[in-house]
């Protein structure tokens, strides 16, 4: 092998990548213990397949791709049976709108948050309410959201990786946002 080709150098992994991988995992799982475990599992899995490392990618990209797969597995486990979450999501969808008129039910109508967006972005209380409200959502939503908005993953890929139907994907997106917004309104105003 060429002396200049970068080879995996496991002795330096912790120093070089542990924080980055941990941040990556915790921002997608919202669970410190689980994120720690996955970083460890990633290093161990990488050690086992040192031979499969190809110099086309950097060491970091390679480690991230291993971690990503582990995160997707974790999402799947958290979400339980996709069929079940689909049914539940559809059932819960009924209550925001009047079945006959299609309009917002009066008790669910959106109300102004009384501050402009930028002020809210930096408002500590609002952010802590947001975090609490996010925890009430089905875990599948966090995965869908982070894959879509943080990783720019195409919808089709998300559906394949999380074993979701397209219909189910959109129900989760729609339903979760209705709930999240309602939760913010309830606790903020």
């Amino acid at each position, binding site marked *: 092998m060429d002396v200049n080709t970068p080879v995996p150098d496991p*002795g330096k992994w912790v120093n070089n990548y542990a924080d980055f991988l941990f941040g990556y995992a915790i921002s997608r799982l919202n669970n410190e213990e689980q994120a720690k475990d996955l970083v460890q599992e990633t290093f161990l899995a990488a050690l086992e397949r040192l031979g499969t490392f190809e110099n086309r990618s950097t060491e970091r990209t390679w480690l991230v791709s291993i971690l990503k797969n582990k995160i997707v597995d974790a999402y799947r486990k958290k979400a339980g049976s996709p069929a079940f979450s689909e049914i539940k999501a559809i059932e819960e969808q009924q209550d925001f709108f009047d079945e006959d008129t299609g309009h*917002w039910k009066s008790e669910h109508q959106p109300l102004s948050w009384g501050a402009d967006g930028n002020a809210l972005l930096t408002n500590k209380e609002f952010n802590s309410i947001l975090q609490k409200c996010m925890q009430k959502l089905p875990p599948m939503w966090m995965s869908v959201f982070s894959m879509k908005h943080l990783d720019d993953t195409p919808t089709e890929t998300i559906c394949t990786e999380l074993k979701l139907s397209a219909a189910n994907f959109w129900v989760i997106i729609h339903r979760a946002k209705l709930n999240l917004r309602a939760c913010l309104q309830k606790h903020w105003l």
Partner: protein
Amino acid sequence: MSRLKNIQNNCKHATFLIEKKHTDGLTFRETVELRIHLTGCSMCRLFNKQSRQINEMVKQLFRRSAETRLDDAYKQRLQNLIDDELNKN
């Protein structure tokens, strides 16, 4: 005409289109449908705005948590674990 009437009154469908717009974008027809609805519905206009703000805030939360660092004790344990594995070979 009945389809037009339908979208004018259907906030459930309109909020779905809003989410689709912020996720993958809309087809031409959906764009027209949503525009018609929003013209006549201030509640969904507000929903539209708040939905976008929520996306921004959630993204920020995620980014901030990505800056969390591992504690040194845990890193040391990881390092030991890796060293042990390497020494096996």
